[in-house]
């Protein structure tokens, strides 16, 4: 990904020099391995800090809402779809943005890699030619195929190339089709369970949740000035880690993302305890695809299905 990094720097420097943008949002090396941090570069020196590799999994669309400046922003497939969603929802104007499109081959799953390692990971190296990733730390070193170390949402991704952009950093990558990968395999597994098994599955899934709201903070869709969980008058949901409160929070947050979620995986990546938050959101994404033929963020014109009314909307559930 070195070639990407150089190209990103080159484009970003040009944009700042020509005064086309006030800042470029990209990534710089994070303070811990596998987590590069979003970074607002406002001058040439700061741009030199930019990096691009398979640890850029947080969603940059999260940082453009309600901004007044002119912004250059890196965008992979899912990030670009979230930017499109912001444009539709009036959170940013297309004219304010210069989108640097990045054809993406997926991000590394930090939870999966941490589980493979025999201790804290200190360095991560990627061999692009061989397609492998080597993680190492005190007294261990392990090499795996990148395909095995990908975040699950990336391995089933069918929109790797940006849907809107002003310029691409490289040629488009080959898209995976829905025949090659089944985006909904995970959802179907849960759907096949009995109600008791489902209940137990989610109980188990959420048992580690500490209500830190990292999933919400990492999510570009969660831009409400006051989140329902933080409100106290009225208090919509209990703030404790009582299983009912935890489940209510996750259920409602997911529902707020219905028809808007692009399955970027930022929630899962941000979670400190490794909860697969996508077990909620992916179901809604599947429903929207099946009921409305809808995929979020594919255009800057159409509003999401739960935001519009059509006389032929499915309503079999109303008796």
């Amino acid at each position, binding site marked *: 990904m070195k070639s990407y990094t150089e190209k990103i720097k080159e484009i970003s420097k040009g944009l700042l020099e020509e005064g086309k943008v006030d800042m470029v949002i990209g990534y710089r090396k994070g303070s811990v391995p596998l987590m590069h941090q979003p970074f607002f570069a406002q001058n040439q020196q700061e741009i030199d800090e930019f990096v691009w590799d398979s640890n850029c999994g947080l969603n940059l669309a999260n940082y453009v809402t309600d901004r007044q400046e002119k912004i250059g922003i890196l965008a992979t497939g899912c990030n670009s779809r979230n930017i499109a969603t912001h444009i539709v929802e009036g959170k940013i104007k297309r004219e304010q943005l210069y989108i640097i499109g990045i054809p993406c081959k997926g991000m590394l799953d930090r939870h999966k890699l941490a589980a493979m390692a025999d201790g804290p990971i200190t360095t991560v190296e990627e061999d692009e030619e061989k397609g492998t990733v080597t993680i190492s730390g005190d007294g261990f070193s392990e090499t795996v195929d990148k395909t095995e170390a990908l975040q699950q949402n990336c391995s089933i991704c069918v929109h790797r190339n940006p849907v809107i952009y002003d310029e691409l950093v490289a040629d488009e990558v080959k898209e995976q089709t829905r025949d090659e990968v089944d985006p909904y395999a995970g*959802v179907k597994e*849960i*759907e096949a*369970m009995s*109600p*008791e*098994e*489902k*209940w*137990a*599955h*989610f109980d188990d899934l959420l048992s580690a949740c500490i209500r830190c709201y990292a999933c919400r903070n990492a999510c570009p869709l969660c831009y409400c000035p006051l989140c329902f969980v933080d409100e106290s008058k009225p208090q919509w949901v*209990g703030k*404790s*880690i*009582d*299983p*009912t*409160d935890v*489940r*209510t929070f996750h*259920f409602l947050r*997911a*529902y707020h993302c*219905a028809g808007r979620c692009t399955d970027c995986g930022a929630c899962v990546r941000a979670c400190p305890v490794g909860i697969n938050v996508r077990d*909620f959101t992916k*179901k*809604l994404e599947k*429903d929207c695809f099946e009921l409305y033929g809808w995929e979020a963020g594919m255009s800057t014109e159409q509003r999401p299905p739960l935001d519009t009314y059509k006389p032929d909307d499915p309503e079999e*559930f*109303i*008796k």
Partner: protein
Amino acid sequence: MKNLLEHMGIEPERLHFSWISSAESTKFVDVATKVTEAVKSLENKEKKFVKTKPKVA
């Protein structure tokens, strides 16, 4: 919403959506009866989404 609640393990029998006008008293009675019957018919009596008492102080 019905789909996601069922996905999380709420039994379909517990979830009912109806559109009833204030003038449709018979429909209201009818629906209320059907809902209670459906819920009572469930084998699993475990309360879901109900907080009984705080488990943490």
